[in-house]
Every structure is written in C-alpha cells, then in structure tokens.
C-alpha cells in the first residue's frame, strides 16, 4: 500500500468537490487529505488529494476522475520530484513551567506563536509533512488541546 499524491485541475464550479469525493467513496477508498484552492486562472481550481491504498483501484479512480467533465487534468505526483507543504494550527497545554520549552520548540520549527493564554499556547507551523509530524510528536507530551492540519498542497518542481 502506497501513499499517493494526486493533483487534479478542475473547473471552479459548485458540485465538483462532491463529484470527486464520490468517486473515492464509491470504491470504498479513504482520502487522507484533500485541499482545494484557486490557481493562476480563477476559472480553474487545483485539488491536492492524498490517499493510501491499492494501486489498481487508485489507477481506476484516476481514470474515472479523468472521465468527469469538470475535471481538466489529473496527475499522480507520487514518486516525482515535488514540493509539498502543509500548515498546522495547534493549541498546546502550557503553564508557567513548560512555556519556555514550548516556545523554544516553536522557534526551532520556525513557527509563530499566534495566541497565548494562562493555560495554553497557540501556534502555526508550516512545512512538509515530516516536519509537521515531528513537531506534533514533540509537543504531544505537553498535551494537545485542539489541533488542525490543512492537508497537503503539492506541485512539481
């Protein structure tokens, strides 16, 4: 089972997300993450989909994606030279004794503190998935109050 990063260019139109997501669910295929946003052409959006699973089924899904009228281009970015980035927002438990250590970690990970409360620190981190994972692992012992990951965006170099 391999992790696939699929980039899909679609018409920027209502209903497209549902059509794309449906193809995955119709084959009982779980999407790890999905991001959508405008491209340089406001009529076109780019979806970046990360999914893990059987290669044959995924190949089939890509063919099905290509068949959707609102899909302009499908590209499997797996295994090619690409940049991928993800954003993380996380609210970490903290008190006077742990605050310094957490802020130091945020610095090392080149993140920013975006909020501070008596009992918590909220931060943003940006980077590839390994970096995000590493940060989460580091702060986990302090206690994570709330967390959200953006899902990956990717583009060939």
């Amino acid at each position, binding site marked *: 089972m391999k992790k696939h990063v699929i980039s899909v260019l679609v018409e920027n139109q209502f*209903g497209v997300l549902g*059509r794309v997501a449906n193809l995955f669910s119709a084959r009982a295929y779980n999407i790890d993450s999905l991001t959508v946003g405008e491209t340089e052409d406001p009529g076109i959006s780019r979806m970046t989909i990360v999914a893990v699973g059987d290669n044959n089924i995924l190949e089939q899904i890509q*063919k099905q994606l*290509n068949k959707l009228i609102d899909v*302009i281009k499908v590209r499997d970015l797996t295994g090619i030279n690409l940049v991928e980035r993800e954003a993380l927002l996380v609210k970490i438990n903290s008190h006077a004794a742990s605050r310094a250590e957490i802020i130091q970690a945020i610095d090392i990970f080149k993140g920013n503190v975006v909020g501070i409360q008596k009992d918590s620190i909220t931060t943003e981190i940006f980077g590839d998935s390994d970096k995000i994972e590493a940060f989460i692992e580091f702060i986990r012992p302090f206690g994570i109050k709330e967390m959200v990951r953006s899902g990956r965006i990717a583009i060939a170099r």
Partner: protein
Amino acid sequence: MSKSMTGAEILVDALIKEGTECLFGYPGGVVIPIFDVLYKRQKEIRFILARHEQGAAHMADGYARASGKVGVCLATSGPGATNLVTGIATAHMDSIPVVFITGQVNSALIGTDAFQEANIMGITQSITKHNYLVNDVKDLPRIITEAFHIAATGRPGPVLIDLPVDVSNSTLEDYSYPTEINIRGYKPSVKGHRKQITKAAEFIANSERPVIFAGGGVVISDSYKELRELAEKINAPVTTTLMALGVFPEDHELHMGMPGMHGTKVANFGLMECDLIISIGARFDDRITGDVSKFAPNAKIIHIDIDPASVSKIIKVDVPVVGDAKSVLEELIPIVAKREKNHWNDEVAGWKKEHKMFYRTDDTDEVKPQYVVERLCANLPKDSIIATEVGQNQMWAAQYYEYTYPRQLLTSGGLGTMGFGLPAAIGAQLAFPGRTVIDIAGDGSIQMNIQELATAFVERVPVKVAILNNGYLGMVRQWQDLFWDKNYSGTCLKRQVDCPDICCSPSPTCAPYVPDFVKLAESYNVLGLRCTEADKVDETIQKAMAYDGPVVMEFIVAKEENVFPMVPAGKPINEILDVEI
C-alpha cells in the same frame, strides 16, 4: 440572428434544433412553462405523454437504442424526477445517449425542502455521464448543446439538466443557439495509438488460437462491417455479448454465439481455450467472465475500447487500444496479416456440431417458451425490432431468436431492469413506424410498466407484446430450484394468502392468475390474445401481426422451465449446467 426568449422557449427551440422528433415525458407544476411552449410548437416536436415517468425514460432510451440518435425525456421536479431514476440508471449502465430534463423548484428555494423538491443533481451524480443545474438563463443554450454533445460522443450516456422554474420563466435578450462546443475537460480520444495498433497486429500474427470478443461498443461505433472484415481476414471465431447480438451474422461459420452465464458452450469453451482475446467494445462483465481468476487462463488480451476506464478494470490487458472501434479497426485491418484456418478452427467447428442449443420437448404437454421465441423469429419480418423484459424471457429471446442486424435487440443488460421492454418497444416503434416491434416479456416484468399500453393505444403505436406467462418470477425461481432447495419463496405470482405454507410446484388447483392479461389488454383498447397450445402459437402470432394496432399475446408456457446452458454465478465459465436428458 439572435432574439429574445424565455428559458422555456429556449429549451424547446434548442430541442428542435437538435433534431428531437419525439419528446417523452410527464408534466407537473414547475414545468408548465415548458409545456406551454410545447403546446404552441407541437407541429415541430411531438410530445409523447407516458403514463409513468419511468416509462417515459425507457421510451427515450428505446428510441435511442433503436435509432442511434439521442433520446429526450422531460419530467417535473421532486417525484417526477425521482421516478426517472431507474430509467436513467438503465441508460447509464448500457451507455445509451439520453438527455433528461427535470424541472426544479425556484432557485431561491433550493435546499429548503420546498414543495416537490428533490436533490436530483446529487441523486443522479453516479448514474449520469454528467449533470447540470442551470443557474442562469444565459447559460441555458450552452448547457443544452453540451448536454447533447456529451450524451452522444465518446462512450455515450445519459446527461441530466435540472432547470429551476424561475430560469424557465426568465428572459434572455440575445438568444442564439450555439454552433460551437468547447469543453476543456472533455476530449474523448477517437483515434487509437498507432504503436498499440501495430502491437495488436503482432499479437494477432503470433496467435494460434484467437477469438474475437465483440460487445456493445461495436453497435455504438457502427463498426459491424469492419468487425466482419477483420474476423474473415484472420479467420478468428467470434463471440458477441448480449449487448452486441446482431453485429455478426448468427449463421456465419465463424460465429460461436453469446458468451457468459447463459451463453453457448462453444463461446465459453472458445474463451477458455483460446490464446488471444481480441476484445472490441466489450467490458468483461461478470456475467461473462464468471470466476475472473480462472477466466481465459492462457489468453493474451487485446482490448479496444473508447473508455480508458473500461480497460484493465476487471482483467489485466496486454495490449490496450483506447479509441473508437471503427477508427481502430480501419487502421488495424490493413496491417494485420491474413491468417489461415488451422486446428483451432476445426476444434471450434467440432464444438459447434456437438453442442447445439437444445431444449426438451418431451417432458411436458405445456408450451415451451423457447418454442414461442423460435416461432416469433420464424413469423416476424427479418427487420423486426425485439425488445425484452428481464429474466428468463430475456435469455430465451437472446438464445432462440436469430439476430441479423445491429440495434435489432433492445435489452437492459447492465442494470437488468424489469419493466424496460414495453416502453422501450414504444420508443423504438416511434423511431421506426414502418417496422414490426415486439416486446418479449415475462408475466412479472410486464406488470412493472403495463400502464404504457395506454400510451401505445392513444399514440397509435402498434407494438406487439408476447408475454411468456410461467406464473413465476421465473429467473429467480430458477435459482431457487437449482441452488436453494426449491424453496420458491416470494416468486410464485399465483400465490394467495390461503395457499399452503410450503409449496414448491404448481398444481391444477392453483388459484387463477391475476391479472387476466387478455381482459387487461382489452381495457386499454389493445387486442388481447391467449394461447395455451403449441399448435396455436403460429396462428396467434399471425393474428397479432395482422392486427393494425397494439396487441398483447399471452402464451401460457411451461411453468418450471429453466434457462440452459447455465454457468452458476462465481464459477469458471467452462463449468456449465445443462438440460438433463
């Protein structure tokens, strides 16, 4: 030249410009504006009022299957739209070009559980090739052009347009029907890849035991002449799927018959023993492959199909050729080496002699359904169109009628929709008023859209229906007979509340059949004929043929007759059950 028109006027005008002769449908509140325009332009477009939206959908589908043109169907929002769903799915599974138009509630009310609102866009997403919700009247001309284009090109299929009533009522100042289409996400590839075609020719040259496996794609691409040319040049035995019956003459020495669950032994042995399958517009359905892991163990596979998603979906293919079958065959035929007949052709010929289609005539006094189908074939004109319902009737129609033209058999293969045949026959008859059109039906299926007899009568559509009445939901009863200890649960159509709990055979004391099909036909002003004896079968058919109007023939047939040969579901296709002699 442009002019000012309302959405409803644009719709009807566009349909006329697309060459729509017949519009099948049913009215309702939000489509009254459209019906008003239809009323005014009735000289230019014929509206056929079905008695159920599902009937209208199958009529449009039958019209499309028989003629190769796009069928068009109109229904109102909510229940009208949901009643179409089975018809849309039926067309989708068999790649039939139909444009469905549904009314929708006022745009401002969408998503509010408004009166007669259904999210038909969401509901039909997976059963249409594409669907559109029209937000603005200025998009309507483009959407209609695109819908017809998408429905008819590439791998054809149904397209739905959901039209809110306020869009129907609003005015576009500068309407003109678009002449150009440019959909950036839709560019079906027609021409096959030259390298792949060359490779296919090499595989054919290296094959000792080739088989051509022809499917519905041959019908769609209109490539039956090319198919025959290829088959004769390389002397490859041919098998045609249910969806392709008629594309290759059944009396041709290379023809092996239909493959699959109820196919001929010859075709199934041929697929299992060959060393090369040349698949042309067929999608390796599980009714044909049986146990996929044991299917055609020694065969390399060339797969010619316009839809890349069909290729290697079920079976790993050695030479995929994505393109239109006609275009690919035109390129392939000149470069393929002529192949002489060899021991393989002898072997196939031997099977053909040994395994003829067969049914017993000595085990009952009842009329055999296969015999009725044979007699229909003998009595009907050669160019007749045959629609079927679903079940045993459909399989006997496939096995015992001899098809000589593409588009001669109209049958719901992919979805297997009971109730398809009668409305499809009506649609086909409207496309070909001069030909004989018949629905070969089961007594169960026919009741699913029997109301369309009214449509047949009032529109003077002289379709003939031949009900093979076995008193059972025969195909399901057959499975219960063979694999479920003869527990005829929920399959006896004569069963009444006072019947014994356990009953696995019909008897003379059974309650009479409900409904009385002859009386029912008469109540629709349709001629009803009942036939209970084998030697009256011809007479009944001739009477029906001589009658200038719709006819229902009811043949009381052997109640527990089974369809053979049969490959039990999930078995390899050379493990075949057959008639016990």
